[in-house]
């Protein structure tokens, strides 16, 4: 992978000099704002990028040009943050310098902010790769801008319909983005997702596919948001011989010839070891290898597989991949652990029915008493439509009522959540409403006995608020210092 041609920033001409001035202006404005917002205790992942893009709309592409290697985009509904973190971890272990928008700010300005953060004041960038998690809706625009050599697709689920309209539109957006990728690039696609796998590959591009080939127990959740029931090619009924979760599994169409493609990279074995460590057996086209890792849930198996496939496409040695995955820890707000005064807080971001059900599954498997704090905001980054809460199987909580020592709801939509839990079968008297997220954390923590566990389930902006509270308690590292 070489450098792509583009703006020549170093040499003559008035236009070029003006461009360079604007680039520096953008970087400086961005960096100054970043400093300012961080003094205020915020991450500075939105405003600096927005401001810089106003000064120079092509800022991201100009900075990406300066990488010695290439850029990669990770997109899809669930698993973007973890997958991009795993890929970054592997690249770093392989000795590459990486830029990564690890705080999950994944719109065009989030990408710009991450690049500005990594650039020097003179506009140079000392990095080999940029790994960018990109929102599905922003995907075509960002692809056009940064022209990534590799694109990794996780899955398409129902998420933030207020922003994208419908699941069909998300697939359209992903198609358009893939068409905008430069020729001779590669794409990594989840073979178990019928709507992703049905996207036609483009001549000149290398497609890599991955999928699970395991015998897992059947899905017990009744409503895991099967958004795809019919064949994406001919609309007849899709038949599944295996379902891993939601609509991910082994499928074929009854009417036409459409079926799950044979994956290049397959997960063929999973052995649980002590202390949550799992040994995975992964099959590549030319070899098999084993890797130890410790992330929970089926959804993380897909994230690991996507990262391994991307590493294979980049021709990174298997031993490096295995070493990097062994040291992987949960990313930003994905089952992060915090300990204070002998109490454990477990923070898990929730943003759509499928992801939230996976989190609930983990909670249901807990032994002993637990506290629960659910914080729902409805800002743009959370999704302004909270009806998805009704598609989450919160009913499952009513089966462990006596295990729940405290239940608190918080955030701008705390009362919506309280009503949701009432109709899920919890006693409204058992549910405390505290809209302020900081106060909700403090009171929940107070009510958690020493040695007890508190599960915190926030939406994205509620999580950012809560991390600020945890910072003040001296717990979470500010995420710009990761």
């Amino acid at each position, binding site marked *: 992978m070489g450098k792509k041609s583009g703006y020549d920033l170093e040499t003559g001409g008035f236009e070029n000099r003006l461009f360079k001035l604007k680039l520096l202006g953008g970087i400086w404005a961005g960096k100054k704002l970043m400093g300012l917002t961080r003094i205020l205790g915020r991450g500075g992942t939105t405003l600096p990028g927005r401001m810089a893009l106003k000064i120079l709309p092509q800022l991201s592409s100009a900075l990406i040009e300066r990488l010695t290697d290439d850029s990669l985009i990770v997109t899809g509904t669930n698993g973007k943050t973890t997958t991009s973190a795993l890929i970054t971890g592997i690249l770093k272990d392989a000795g590459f310098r990486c830029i990564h928008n690890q705080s999950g700010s994944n719109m065009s300005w989030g990408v710009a902010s991450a690049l500005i953060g990594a650039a020097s004041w003179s506009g140079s960038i000392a990095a080999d790769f940029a790994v960018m998690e990109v929102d599905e809706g922003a995907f075509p625009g960002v692809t056009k801008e940064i022209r990534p050599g590799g694109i990794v697709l996780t899955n398409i689920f*129902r998420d933030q*319909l*207020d922003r994208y*309209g*419908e*699941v*069909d539109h998300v697939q359209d957006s992903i198609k358009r983005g893939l068409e905008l990728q430069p020729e001779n690039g590669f794409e990594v696609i989840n073979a178990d997702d019928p709507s992703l796998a049905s996207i036609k590959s483009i001549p000149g591009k290398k497609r890599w596919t991955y999928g699970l080939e395991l015998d897992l127990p059947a899905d017990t959740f009744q*409503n895991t948001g*099967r958004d795809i*029931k*019919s064949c994406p090619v001919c*609309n007849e009924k899709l038949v599944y011989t295996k379902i891993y979760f939601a609509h991910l599994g082994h499928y074929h169409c009854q009417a036409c010839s459409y079926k799950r493609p044979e994956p290049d990279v397959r997960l063929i074995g999973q052995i649980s070891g002590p202390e949550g460590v799992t040994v995975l057996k992964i099959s590549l086209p030319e070899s098999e290898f084993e890797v130890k890792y410790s992330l929970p849930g089926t959804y993380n198996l897909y994230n690991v597989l996507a990262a391994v496939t991307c590493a294979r496409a980049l021709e990174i040695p298997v031993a490096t991949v295995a070493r990097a995955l062994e040291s992987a820890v949960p990313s930003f707000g994905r089952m992060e652990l915090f300990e204070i005064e002998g109490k454990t807080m477990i923070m898990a971001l929730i943003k759509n029915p499928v992801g939230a059900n996976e989190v609930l599954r983990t909670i249901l498997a807990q032994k002993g008493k637990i506290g629960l704090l659910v914080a729902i905001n*409805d800002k*743009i980054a959370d999704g*302004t*439509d*909270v*009806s*998805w*809460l*009704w*598609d989450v199987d919160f009913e499952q909580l009513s089966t462990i009522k006596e295990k729940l020592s405290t239940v608190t709801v918080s955030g*701008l*939509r705390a*009362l*919506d959540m*309280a*009503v*949701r839990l*009432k*109709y899920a079968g919890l006693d*409204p008297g058992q549910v405390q409403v505290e809209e302020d997220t900081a106060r909700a954390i403090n009171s929940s923590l107070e009510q958690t006995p020493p040695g007890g566990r508190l599960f915190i389930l926030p939406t994205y902006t509620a999580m950012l608020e809560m991390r600020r509270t945890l910072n003040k308690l001296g717990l979470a590292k500010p995420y710009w210092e990761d």
Partner: protein
Amino acid sequence: MAEIKIYHLYPGHLNLYGDRGNMLALCCRANWRGIDVEIIPVEPGDKINFPRCDLLFMGGGQDSDQKLIAEDLKGRSQDMRRAVEEGMVIFAVCGSYQLLGLYYTTNRGEKIGGLEIVDLYTEAGQKRLIGNAVIKCSLWDPARTLVGFENHAGKTYLGSSLQPLGTVIAGYGNNGTDKTEGAVYKNLIGTYLHGSLLPKNPWLADYLLQRALDYRDQDYHFTDLDDKLEQQAHDAAIRLAGSRRYKRMATRA
């Protein structure tokens, strides 16, 4: 003992915007009062036994699902129309609401026929109408508010024989221009509002249940439930819909 049979149309296909919440609200609120509920899920190809159905619930769907369903339902629209005339209760949200009308015109000018149950038609709009919505609804005297979330590309226009469900206080409503939202014909209610609509507007859930019981002449005295929490959520949602932040977002959508 009072009993209501709810036919849930295509739970696998029409389930886009928390429609499960509407079903939960109907079932819970009936059960809390000791009314038995039988839910009959209907999948494409299944025959609906209209004479047996008290309440038909139709949710929202994606465009691709919608076409499938329109074709499947066409063969039964006469039975459906007869039942509606007799007073069967229908609650239809978003895509299904459009489907009950005469036709839907797509952006390309293609005209997709509806079930012709009620006198309304829908045209595809240029931009999606998305955001929190509040309407004033005259099913009760004095009128009550309903609060929900709308997300639709189609603009729906009512014929003169139809009453709107309410007038728009915040949001877009049927088409963003005439201030109407939803439609009421006998015991049929169609609306663009989800959110889910019924849990946060429990009086509408109760209205539907009451009408379903009346339809079968079931003598049942409707007891009041403790709706303090629902009322609080309703009031909070109205405050949020009226706040500056949402108005700004609504104009950006």
